[in-house]
């Protein structure tokens, strides 16, 4: 049943937000004009364009659009489709940072594209450059059954504080913050510069565990707890204190040692804590303390939608579950429980067999927007696993949503499975990459296309990066694949046992010598076969790996090559 578009249930811009974003577009338009007129050198222009989301890639400029905390209205998604058609080649790429990248933007068009974004209360500020980046959050936020508090309230407060922050726009290096409001961390808070985890202490108060110095890249590190429990209203005072310590003392002599994780590693987390706490002692109870009225006003905007009562079970769903095995698998892997009975959270897989992970054409974006309007309160989420999520779908509507997603090619029942691959853009687009990522992902995806086989293999996360910068998060893949360049040949280094789940976060271990591109599929196949032989009842891949260690995998892989 199609109905009128409801109001959104997340932060709505007011005149202040709109004024700031439009003044920022005007400023950038002038900067682009000066660059094109030769008044600015490329060196001077570079940080200015980066702070507005504009990268120079291998073939063209790339615009990285912020989707704060991954939350999007159908109207905004339609606009993104429109922008991708007007200023790009009619498709976009959803990233692991809950952003959308357009890969073929012209410099002279960039200000107009940003102005078009501003029409739907969006921007591309601080999606690159050495500043505080787009704040990410749990993609099930506001719908998750295990949620203590909606992390997006805090992500929005951090978004505003960090936007055009005068002190922190020229940091030693980029700075990524992620927030989770659930004990089951879906935001990977232990591998961010700062991870924030909302939890309830013994007194029943909700506050933040502040985790610092996690990250992937060439020196992967698991974040350490800087503060066990931070009162919520002191969040900005504590973040400002931490960022100030980092801005003053973070290394600037070596690009590769400039992230906060290196500072924490070199001085030790105890010294880091002393420095931050000293700064915090001077900042707390000051101008950054959040008034209750401010928190309440932001929280009100994230009030959950008033979902009409719908039956918790549906005869139609049950009938189709029995008659249609693909639908039955889809219910298992792509549908998660909702906090309101009668509703579910549905993940649209942007990983159909053989397709580049995370890509969507303008027509697909519009199709997703249609589905969101018809069945999910006109709201969507982008996950760091590069999928799109319908947060509020009535159980009764699941067969219709499945059918409409299938038309778009987004109904693959593979969420969390071996073909739900995370991959960076790689050498097909990226100036930093050593090797291609997307074709490798496509080959694995084609090889394991059988849904029955994927579900037999079970939860298995493959993550692929085209270089050591690790945008594909290969370190925390159950199977991680890293593209390297050896004397002009693209080789792939395989690691096993990485994990991003809270409490079990781990960096994978390199299995052995890197393999050539044509051997990647065989290698993954041998790894999977080893697991299937060794697994005990109900054991997931990563659990078997932890139990039996790398040796059996090594023997199978390198014995067979």
């Amino acid at each position, binding site marked *: 049943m199609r109905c009128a578009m409801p109001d959104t249930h997340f932060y709505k811009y007011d005149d202040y*937000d709109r004024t700031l974003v439009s003044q920022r577009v005007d400023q950038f338009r002038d900067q682009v004009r000066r660059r094109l007129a030769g008044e600015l050198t490329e060196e001077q222009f570079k940080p200015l364009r980066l702070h507005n989301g504009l990268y120079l890639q291998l073939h063209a400029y790339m615009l990285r659009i912020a989707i704060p905390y991954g939350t999007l209205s159908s109207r905004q998604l339609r606009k993104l489709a429109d922008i991708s058609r007007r200023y790009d080649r009619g498709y976009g790429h959803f990233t692991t940072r809950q952003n959308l990248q357009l890969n073929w933007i012209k410099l002279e068009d960039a200000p107009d594209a940003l102005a078009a974004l501003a029409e739907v209360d969006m921007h591309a500020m601080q999606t690159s450059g050495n500043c505080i980046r787009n704040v990410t959050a749990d993609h099930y936020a506001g719908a998750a059954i295990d949620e203590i508090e909606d992390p997006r309230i805090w992500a929005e407060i951090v978004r505003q*504080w960090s936007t055009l922050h005068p002190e922190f726009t020229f940091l030693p290096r980029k700075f990524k913050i992620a927030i989770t409001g659930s004990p089951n961390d879906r935001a990977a808070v232990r591998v961010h510069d700062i991870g924030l985890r909302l939890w309830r202490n013994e007194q029943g108060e909700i506050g933040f565990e502040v985790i610092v110095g996690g990250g992937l890249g060439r020196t992967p590190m698991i974040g350490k707890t800087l503060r066990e429990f931070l009162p919520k209203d002191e969040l900005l005072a504590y973040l400002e204190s931490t960022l100030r310590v980092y801005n003053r003392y973070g290394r600037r002599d070596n690009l590769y040692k400039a992230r906060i994780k290196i500072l924490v590693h070199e001085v030790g987390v105890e010294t880091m804590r002393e420095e931050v706490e000293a700064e915090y002692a001077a900042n707390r109870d000051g101008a950054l303390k959040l008034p209750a009225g401010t928190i309440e006003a932001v929280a009100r905007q994230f009030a959950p939608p008033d979902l009409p009562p719908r039956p918790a079970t549906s005869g139609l769903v049950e009938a189709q579950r029995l008659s249609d095995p693909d639908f039955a698998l889809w219910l298992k892997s792509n549908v998660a429980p909702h906090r309101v009975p009668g509703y579910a959270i549905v993940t649209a897989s942007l990983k159909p067999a053989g397709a580049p992970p995370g890509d969507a054409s303008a027509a697909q974006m519009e199709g997703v927007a249609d589905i969101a309007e018809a069945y999910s309160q006109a709201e969507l989420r982008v996950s760091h696993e590069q999928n799109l999520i319908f947060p509020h779908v009535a159980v009764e509507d699941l067969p219709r949503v499945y059918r409409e997603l299938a038309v778009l090619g987004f109904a693959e029942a593979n969420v969390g499975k071996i073909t739900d691959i995370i991959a960076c853009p790689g050498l097909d687009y990226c100036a930093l990459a050593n090797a291609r990522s997307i074709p490798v992902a496509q080959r694995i995806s084609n090889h394991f296309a059988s849904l029955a086989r994927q579900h037999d293999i079970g939860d298995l996360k493959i993550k692929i990066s085209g270089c050591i910068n690790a945008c594909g998060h290969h370190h925390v893949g159950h199977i991680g694949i890293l593209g390297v360049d050896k004397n002009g040949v693209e080789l792939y280094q395989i690691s096993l046992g990485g994990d991003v789940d809270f409490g079990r976060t781990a960096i994978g271990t390199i299995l052995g010598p890197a393999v050539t591109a044509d051997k990647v599929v065989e290698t993954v196949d041998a790894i999977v076969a080893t697991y299937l032989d060794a697994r005990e009842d109900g054991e997931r891949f990563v659990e078997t790996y932890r139990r039996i260690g790398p040796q059996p995998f090594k023997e199978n892989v390198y014995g067979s090559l």
Partner: protein
Amino acid sequence: MALYSEAGLPASYVALPFADWKARPEWPAVSLANTDPVEDLAPHVGRLRLIVLDFPRFSDGRAYSQARLLRGRLGYRGELRATGGVLQDQIAFMLRCGFDSFESEQPGFGEALARARTLFSVVYQPAEDDQVPASLRRLEQANAAAS
């Protein structure tokens, strides 16, 4: 290198490098590297008339923190000058951190300085200038509407 300030050129002092100034802390002007500890100036801020902070490259942002500490934490009220990699696209940030004079080689810097405070009429965070963050303006409006 030309010197600019919003209020016209201030009275000139010769700023001593921090190491030299420490030997004569009664001198009213000091020039800091961006690794020098501004906290050491605490007992002297009432007497100082000029503090010069350095941007070795425009992309090295340590002096923004030094400036905020001098203004906000130590209560320094004299002239605060930015030198080194000082470009017109940083003026708005520098003003918000408390700088009030600038040495720059960039053509057009003076005109940009004259416009800098008109670029953004909305800010999202408190800093060392008079701008009231959007969150507080919203709160004041809500309180006014309620009373």
